[in-house]
């Protein structure tokens, strides 16, 4: 038969059917793909792998965690909450009314530097309960308009802050720009004022590409209600860094924004006086306002989270690797073969022996001698005196002439798999009673 010759002539190592295929033969062509024999690695999550993976994670994570923590601890941060303090005591019953009035809102607070702060010192304001991520708020802007002067009238997304009454489009339009933060801070120490550098506080990409240099504020805050800061109409948007910072909307309702930089070192225990103009209304929605002075390190501002997370995960991994190691020794795996030497799922065993939590079996069968052998001691099993204890099991195997699993399997079980031959409940009980099967 030609198909025979075809198949026997190509004994080559899988390079396809080199034999002359019979004409009209529908014999499928050999390919590793269709025969599903693509070379593959077969990862098996053996205990050794589990333990070493955990170990590896621990080894990598703990140092990183420590480094992060140190980096974060290097950062000196001073936070001063001021939204209540900066309301005159008399007005504190109705803060909203005060903030909306024309009263003088100058307010002075002082901050004590706990530790020497190296320049640059970053000044942030932090708002609370302010939903910059609200759907209505986020989309209320026009990126086109911000970028180029020609798209000035592209304000469809900006409602209701899109067009000033009769004066054309508002630039920059939308709720985000409209609600621009307008508290201002000026710092002094020992009556000597500290300059706050308000340059380079926005991301470079914002400055260069997103905000146009020919775009000038127009009709801004000209409406009936003033939401926040006003903008100098002679300065193009790409230099209005406060606006850029504000318009990079925050992800969470609690957020910090960069206000400026103080480019001198501050010494420990120095008292910094801050004169701030408390214009911004967070009182309507009970929002907090905070002033933050912070240095940075290689990791950025003060944020212990990463460090703690790394450290915790590293330690948990270490503990797990230890735990798994112990558990594997104490409580080895099992699968078992029933009377017909057919593999049963381990769960069937539990249904057969409902009262027992787990059973440790210590013997297996040598296929050549059909003798019972004890499993290697590194499984944590004790070495048994086979003459005394295992006679019944031996008998059992004598009645079964063929065994599918033999010694070589036994060796391969290596890490943790034991074979269990379960003969009957009585037998099992006997072994449990006599202590040869350990209950864990």
């Amino acid at each position, binding site marked *: 038969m030609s198909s025979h010759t075809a198949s026997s002539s190509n004994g080559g190592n899988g390079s396809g059917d080199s034999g002359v295929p019979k004409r009209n033969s529908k014999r499928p062509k050999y390919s590793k793909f269709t*025969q599903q024999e693509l070379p593959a690695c077969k990862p098996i999550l053996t205990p050794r792998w589990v333990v070493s993976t955990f170990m590896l994670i621990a080894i990598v994570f703990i140092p990183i965690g420590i480094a992060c923590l140190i980096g974060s601890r290097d950062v000196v941060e001073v936070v001063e909450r001021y939204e209540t303090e900066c309301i005159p005591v008399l007005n504190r019953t109705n803060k909203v009314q005060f903030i909306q009035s024309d009263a003088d809102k100058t307010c002075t607070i002082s901050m004590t530097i706990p530790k020497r702060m190296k320049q640059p010192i970053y000044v942030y304001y932090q708002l609370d309960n302010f939903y910059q991520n609200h*759907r209505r708020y986020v989309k209320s802007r026009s990126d086109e308009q911000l970028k180029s002067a020609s798209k000035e009238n592209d304000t469809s997304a900006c409602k209701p802050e899109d067009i000033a009454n009769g004066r054309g489009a508002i630039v920059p339009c939308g709720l985000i720009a409209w609600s621009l933060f307008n508290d201002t801070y000026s710092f002094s120490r020992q009556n000597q004022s500290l300059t706050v550098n308000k340059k380079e506080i926005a991301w470079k990409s914002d400055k260069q590409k997103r905000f146009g240099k020919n775009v000038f504020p127009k009709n801004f805050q000209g409406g009936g209600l003033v939401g926040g800061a006003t903008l100098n109409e002679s300065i193009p948007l790409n230099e209005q860094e406060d606006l850029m910072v504000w318009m990079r909307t*925050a992800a969470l309702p609690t957020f910090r924004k960069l206000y400026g*930089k103080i480019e001198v070192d501050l010494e420990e225990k120095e008292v910094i006086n801050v004169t701030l103009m408390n214009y911004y209304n967070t009182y309507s929605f009970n929002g907090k306002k905070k002033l933050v002075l912070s240095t940075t390190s290689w990791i950025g501002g003060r944020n212990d989270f990463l460090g703690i997370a790394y450290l915790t995960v590293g330690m948990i991994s270490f503990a797990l690797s230890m735990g798994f190691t112990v558990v594997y020794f104490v409580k080895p795996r099992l699968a078992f073969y029933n009377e017909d030497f057919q593999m049963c799922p381990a769960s069937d065993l539990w249904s057969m022996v409902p009262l027992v939590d787990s059973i440790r079996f210590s013997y297996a069968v040598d296929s050549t001698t059909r003798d019972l052998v004890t499993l290697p001691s590194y499984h944590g099993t004790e070495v048994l005196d086979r003459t005394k204890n295992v006679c019944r099991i031996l008998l059992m195997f004598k009645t079964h002439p063929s065994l599918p699993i033999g010694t070589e399997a036994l060796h391969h079980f290596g890490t943790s798999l034991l074979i269990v031959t379960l003969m009957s409940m009585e037998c099992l009980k006997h072994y449990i009673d006599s202590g040869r099967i350990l209950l864990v």
Partner: protein
Amino acid sequence: MSGGWERLKGSRSRTTRDSSFHTPAPSRTVTLGRVQPQAPGHRTIYCNDREANLPVRFKGNSISTTKYNFLTFLPKGLFEQFRRVANCYFLLISILSMTPISPVNPVTNVVPLSLVLLVSLIKEAFEDWKRFQNDMVINNTLIDVLQNEKWVALPWKKLQVGDIIRPPCCCYADCVGTVKKDAFFPADLLFLASTNADGVCYIETANLDGETNLKIRKALERTWDYLTPDKATEFKGEMQCEQPNNSLYTFTGNLIFQKQTLPLSPNQILLRGCSLRNTEYIVGAVIFTGHETKVMMNSMNVPSKRSTLERKLDKLILALFATLFIMCLIGAIGSGIFINRKYYYLSLDKAVATEFNPGNRFAVAVLTLFTLITLYSTIIPISLYVSIEMIKFIQSTQFINKDLHMYHAETNTPALARTSNLNEELGQVEYIFSDKTGTLTRNLMEFFKCSIGGEVYGSGVTETELGGAQRNGIKVQEVRKSSTAIHEKGFNFDDHRIMRGAWRNEPNFDACKEFFRCLAICHTVLPEGDESPEKITYQAASPDEAALVTAAKNFGFFFYRRTPTMIHVRESHVEKMGKIQDVAYEILNVLEFNSTRKRQSVVCRYPNGRLVLYCKGADTVIYERLAGGNDDLKKVTRAHLEQFGSAGLRTLCLAYRDLSPDTYESWNEKFIQAKSSLRDREKKLDEVAELVERDLILIGSTAIEDKLQEGVPACIETLFRAGIKVWVLTGDKMETAINIAYACNLINNDMKQFIISSETDAIREVEDRGDQVEIARFIKEEVKKELKKCLEEAQHYLRTVSGPKLSLVIDGKCLMYALDPTLRVMLLNLSLNCHSVVCCRVSPLQKAQVTSLVKKGARKITLSIGDGANDVSMIQAAHIGVGISGLEGMQAVMASDFAIAQFRFLTDLLLVHGRWSYLRICKVITYFFYKNLTFTLTQFWFTFQTGFSGQRFYDDWFQSLYNVIFTALPVIIVGLFDKDVSASLSKKYPELYKEGIRNVFFKWRVVITWAWSSVYQSLVFYHFVTISSAGGKNSSGKIFGLWDISTMAFTCVVITVNLRLLMMCNSITRWHYISVGGSILAWFLFIFVYSILRENVFFVIFVLMSTIYFYLSALLVPIVALLGDFIYQGIQRCFFPYDYQIIQEIHRHEPDDNTRAGLLEVGSQLTPQEERSYAISQLPRELSKHTGFAFDSPGYESFFAAQLGVYAPQKAWDVARRASMKSKPKTPKRN
């Protein structure tokens, strides 16, 4: 492509006639006079006159099985797609997302939906294209058509009603005309003339009903002469016949010819799809064409089956919808509460749109509900269905269809998955319903052993014995074939003691002589072909008979000619070695075989006047009729019978009786009387036969092997171990069925057998009385009694710990009553507790009933396997239908979901492909569930911190491409390549299959585990990323915005989800690496480009990547997210391992099985002769009560009727069985 579509359109235009003929359309006025309006009841056809037929507009002969054409493709295809709930849902979401309440851009939903639709439509188009090409091949097959007094080869599609055509026989195709291949009839034909004498032709109807025995059709005497072109041109007839219908066995019509009306019967009709045999060619007139032919009218729409897993998937999707709704409801309520004018920066004054109007919180909540639905729509994995479809499609077309393990070289047939819907269903089958003939057996009877005068001859070993020996651990020794061994069709016997005339030297050579003569004389076989031993073929109603006659031939008693009264036998070595003489025996009477008599006798007269009755039959009936004495021989022979029976052989006892002329004459008178009686002829004949069939002398017994398909017992054994129960449903007699069940190891003597048969004396007695109502009532009572008894007994056995395994044998008549609604439960209870069930003498309908009984009653997953038309109903009733392809007709294959060439390939189909598919699909589904849930949940957690406003966390395009690009490919790779254990291990440990039956990989528990993992991971993603990103990032103290953080989170999600996929892989090929790496890379490439182009995420990735924070998070978050799963997997594998994991570990250090070597083995295993050469002598033989009588004679009546040219109506069981005549598939010689 476009050309193809054009052609497609052409072939589709069934309503218009093919107008490619050159004859100009005659004007109506000319032909009007002859046109008669087509009455609805009948059609009038003018043979050989195209013009006359023209006005009637008969349909053309081209067929089309395509679903779409060029115009209908888009609307119809889209309609099909939107019948899926998921697609409809996404359409709805897409529409919703175009409204202003949507937080996302419409592209988010439109892009994935259109991609999914596109892929599905491309697949549909591809499949339809293939169907179209198939049609084209068929439509363009050539056939000789009479045109201008010449035979002209035209393609089938050009045929028209009324044409005279000349289909040749496929065997003679080489020498006749231009038509060479597959000489099937192209349309339904009226048979006019044949090259055979007497206007007879032989046809094979395998394509219609699976029967391969030849049927005889006879033309009307008046038309016999119209064979040559010039003669045929003169043939002008008018035919009036019924309208096209789907009844294969009826036809009514008249031929008005030479002013005479000749009635037509089915005997003159040749149906499309049949093929001509033993006839050089015939001439016929086309009656029905194309889709109006009977076979096409019969072609049923295969009901599309959905897998159980997919139905369960629907439930999962529903659960997801519920989750979605709950999430949206929470968000909606939250938004109603949150919205407040105090957030002045949101400008929520009076003019604000309703969706944010604090004055109407309810409206806000309702609108937010819709907003959130569009936002969370990703929870429903849109690409799931299309991915699964793609995976299954590749699985079936690339893996199943191209598996070399399932390629059968002898018949040159690879496996064929006809549907790709059911791949994973193959991994969960619990019940297999199998046909017997042609499925378990080859329908090939071989004379294998015999016992003559108390001596066993024949040294072969049956498959059953081999299997038994291997189970007992005995090594099978190879026995060299001796030089005397002869193996031909029907004869596979070797014993040097009696071959080549050596029997003369045997001590019992007289018995031998009688034995051989009995074989040569006592039969109803017709010899055919050349009268030489090499060339002759025997036409027999049953393959057993042919085997026996062939055996006689090989023993030197060559039966070569039969006349109505004589049988001619060429006997060698009788007088002395080497001498040959022709002897003619006069056949005086034939006492035919039937199922009650279970025997057959022939009374013959030797040339020397000796009168002998030769009888062969079942051991039980023969032994009853033996003459006294010679008990030793009887005992020994009985022992032999039992031995044969347990080896799975079919036995017959042979006996003879010398008759004195006086006895014969007096008996013959009675016989003639009985034969000519008009009432109860059958019964009277039986009674008369009883008179002479007594005082027989036993000669011996024959043992015929009903040759099992290769590897059947081993396959069944494997399936048993896999937890699959195999039921045999056969139209055969109970004895045959039990015999085969023994041969296949379905039943053995250790089993407790429950036999419910209608062949009991009590039932027969009632039947003889003939009152139908009474019979029905009585049998029902009996069946009920039996069932109750068996059930009680079975329960008793089940309660004892080590009771015997149970088996049930039931026959069709009892089954009919047992399937009655009142008894059905009992039957189901009993049969489900049985290890194996054999139903015999069942009709095709009953096969289907039994199948659906288990399918619906027990809610188990069923598979039916069969090869013939009688199995079609069963194949369609089961969850999965498997057809045996390569040998017989196409009906079973056409109805099936999978077609394989051999029963044993079921092992590969189920244990390897089915199991893998199941595992893979489960993984794919659960993974889809996980990745979409995880993704959506991060979005959900974000909603809580945006004042429930429904602000999206991710950019639109992130969201829309998440499913279709960033996580799409790896999961498909897993669906294709994941492999827990190798194919050979799957077969070595069939028990692994039980995991599929128990459905352990797609339980709610599994889904919930994944859901927990999703919740955990999404919490990690959201909170780790947001918390750690607060405060200044990088040393310049700048702060991240929303899009920076969401991009960070999305990066983590993409990395984690892709790595999670690797974690669940059992085998990782480089495709895994490429796809996983590629997906992650695709994300980065995308974001690099996208962030330059898009406003809101402008430059974010560059901003992010300029900070150390990015790298720290990208390392931390995925690992923390995966840690939970990793711990779970570690614990699961160690303490609650799945079976496959244990096997993996056992064979961890073995290299992947070298299946290449295995394939070579498959190739070399294929000759049955070689396999037969294995033998053992020391096999311990158990004596059993089972003697294995079986003698099958399907359709005696119809066979002989056919021989006489009389059309006998089909009987129910005739369809259920088919006679032998299995000719080896011939590869047509080219040129």
